[in-house]
């Protein structure tokens, strides 16, 4: 058991590290990045941007450091200056980056001129890093500063401001879909081949084939835009609370930012996520319930003369829920990362939308922080799933 956990934790660290390296490399190796807009301004000639400006901005984004150093500074916060041992500085002249790359126009094989970095005019030495501000490393919980979305503010502040909205949305919809989806699945399995089962399975099948983004738009049309146009009671769509007050027929005047306003705004996104989740959960529960109902111990329970309710609730249902652990545990990363597509349709100011905004706006520290935390949570969820499996089902042993 101990050996198993040690091995698992080792694997977890490896997975997290590899995904950190991969996401960092993907975002940072690609050309362009935060300097792309700057170069266009420079070509515009309206603002004169000097060499010094560019060097300063490059230093701000740490683009003047070589990638491995940038990565370790992001991950664990080193190197942050010369290594001092016993009052003596070591390696202070080691080259860690290039402050002013030399660019030359080169004729490429397609007959066009390309700007390529051919050398370095001015190197960055390790001792120059001493005065720079730096994060303490994402591994130690310091996510650094945001580049664009909330410039120079800590990423953690940005994440915390969004986290509660995402937890509201995902938490509420997960709870609702568990409370509705599980009974539906069980009932449908118990009444297999009945009319209810037939209608229910076809609806759930359609629900699972329905793309979330189209479903969300349909809901906005059906419950917000069309009723509003017709003067019926409607549900506001978009954002988590409105900017100014409005009146809804039957419900009356709604003050912006009030509890009533927030409840009205959360209805549609929660409904979309809940319905999508229900179709998934209930199909899962139904399949696993049908599997369990064929087992010998269920037949034994019936043969003992137990009532059908007890057979289903105590013998079948409990065992049918074991594979369902897999599904439920993986809402943990979902609670953090949100539903990217649903949040973007309803302009819900949660984590998923923040991630999209960060990617669109080149705010890499934010995007990478979200991805990093998500990777950690997913890995933890995987471990949790395996542990819960053994707790729920003693027949399964960890080895």
């Amino acid at each position, binding site marked *: 058991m101990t050996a198993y956990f040690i091995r698992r934790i080792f694997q977890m660290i490896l997975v997290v590290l590899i995904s950190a390296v991969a996401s960092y490399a993907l*975002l940072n190796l690609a050309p362009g990045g935060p300097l792309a807009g700057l170069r266009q301004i420079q070509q515009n000639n309206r603002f004169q941007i000097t060499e010094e400006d560019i060097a300063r901005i490059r230093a701000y984004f740490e683009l003047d450091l070589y990638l491995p150093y940038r990565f370790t500074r992001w991950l664990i916060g080193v190197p942050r200056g010369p290594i001092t041992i016993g009052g003596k500085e070591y390696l202070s002249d080691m080259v860690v980056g290039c402050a002013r790359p030399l660019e030359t126009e080169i004729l490429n094989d397609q007959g066009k001129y390309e700007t390529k970095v051919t050398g370095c005019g001015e190197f960055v030495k390790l001792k120059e890093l001493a005065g720079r501000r730096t994060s303490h490393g994402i591994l130690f919980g310091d996510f650094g500063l945001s580049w664009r979305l909330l410039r120079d503010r800590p990423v953690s502040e940005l994440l915390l401001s969004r986290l509660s909205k995402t937890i509201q949305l995902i938490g509420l919809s997960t709870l609702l879909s568990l409370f509705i989806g599980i009974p539906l699945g069980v009932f449908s399995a118990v009444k297999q081949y009945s009319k209810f089962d037939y209608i229910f399975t076809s609806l759930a*099948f359609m629900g*699972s*084939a329905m*793309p979330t983004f189209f479903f969300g738009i349909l809901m906005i049309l059906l419950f917000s835009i*069309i009723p509003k146009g017709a003067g019926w009671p409607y549900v506001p769509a978009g954002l988590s609370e409105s900017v100014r007050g409005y009146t809804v027929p039957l419900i009356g005047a709604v003050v912006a930012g009030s509890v009533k306003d927030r409840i009205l705004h959360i209805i549609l996104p929660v409904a979309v996520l809940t319905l999508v989740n229900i179709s998934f959960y209930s199909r899962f529960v139904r399949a696993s319930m049908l599997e369990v109902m064929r087992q010998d111990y269920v037949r034994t329970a019936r043969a003992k003369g137990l009532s059908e309710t007890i057979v289903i609730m105590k013998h079948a249902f409990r065992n049918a829920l074991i594979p369902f652990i897999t599904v439920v545990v993986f809402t943990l990363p979902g609670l953090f990362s949100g539903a990217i597509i649903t949040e973007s349709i309803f302009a819900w100011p949660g984590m998923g939308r923040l991630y999209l905004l960060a990617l669109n706006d080149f705010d890499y520290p934010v995007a990478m922080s979200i*991805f990093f935390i998500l990777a950690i949570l997913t890995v933890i969820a995987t471990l949790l799933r395996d542990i819960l499996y053994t707790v729920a089902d003693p027949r399964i042993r960890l080895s």
Partner: protein
Amino acid sequence: MTTAQAPTLIAEPVTIEERTPFQIVMTRFRRHCLTMISLVIMLGILLITILAPVIAPFEIQELSVNDYFVPFGTVDQATGRVHYFGTDNIGRDYFSRLIYAGRISLTVAILSTIISELVGIVVGAISGFFGGWIDSVLMRFVEFMLTIPQLPLLLIISSMLLRNDNLIPIPDPVLKFMGNILLLSPRDSRNAVLIVLVLAGFGWLNAAQLMRGTVLSLKEQTFVEASRSLGASNFRIIMRDMIPNAMAPIIVDASLNLAGYVVGEAALAFLGFGIQDPVPTWGNMLSASQQFMLDKPWLPLVPGLPIFVCSLAFNYIGDGLRDALDPRLKL
């Protein structure tokens, strides 16, 4: 053939109506009414998109100046052509764009499926057949890929690829070929190729696991032993014994993948990380229609319904195939 004379048979040979496995599968398949309907619908949609240049009255980039958001069925005054579904915000014909978009969306889905299943088959077969360290390296990699959150990573990758056209060099013949299928210029089809690569890059994992599982169980079968004792090479055993016998789950996986890719491509385009605007796809048409739906509530339905219909149809086909190919079910 031996030369020994067999005793002549007196009795009439008993004739049992022999049916090939294909026929058996087809009979089971036909029983699924919804599957058959889905198949017909999909063939219809495919036919329309193949005939896109014949059917579409307008070009995809053709602007009807001053005819913005004209209603369904408006006739173009100058040429007498009909805007069946009206026009969009800059006067491009909605119906024509829709069928060209279908051509692009479906081609992307089909190509992604072909690539991901091929990669999955090869990786799974190698992994299952050879076992040992090859197997553990490949399968650890697959498990690792399945652990990392997919949509966020997909978004990172496609945003990087789309912003930097030249990051991955794609040979010109491939672009020309794609351009010919999609009726786009090679330059415009680069995006589509990238999306195919991104989608297929994540899609082969499941197929590889399925293939490995089947190959592991097939390895113990006597006909494989027979092949080997006849002196067949590993390559021949994999190609002739393993792959044909493992096709059933792969075919089901492929049809479900088709549904997934149609939705996946549309989702990426919808979020702005897929094929970009002048080139129409159902996803980016839907996302563009979102900003006008306050005034024109029917607009999102036009590109949205085909996505839903294709996803549903491919799912039904996959479901029907699963039942049809399941050898445990008897007729």
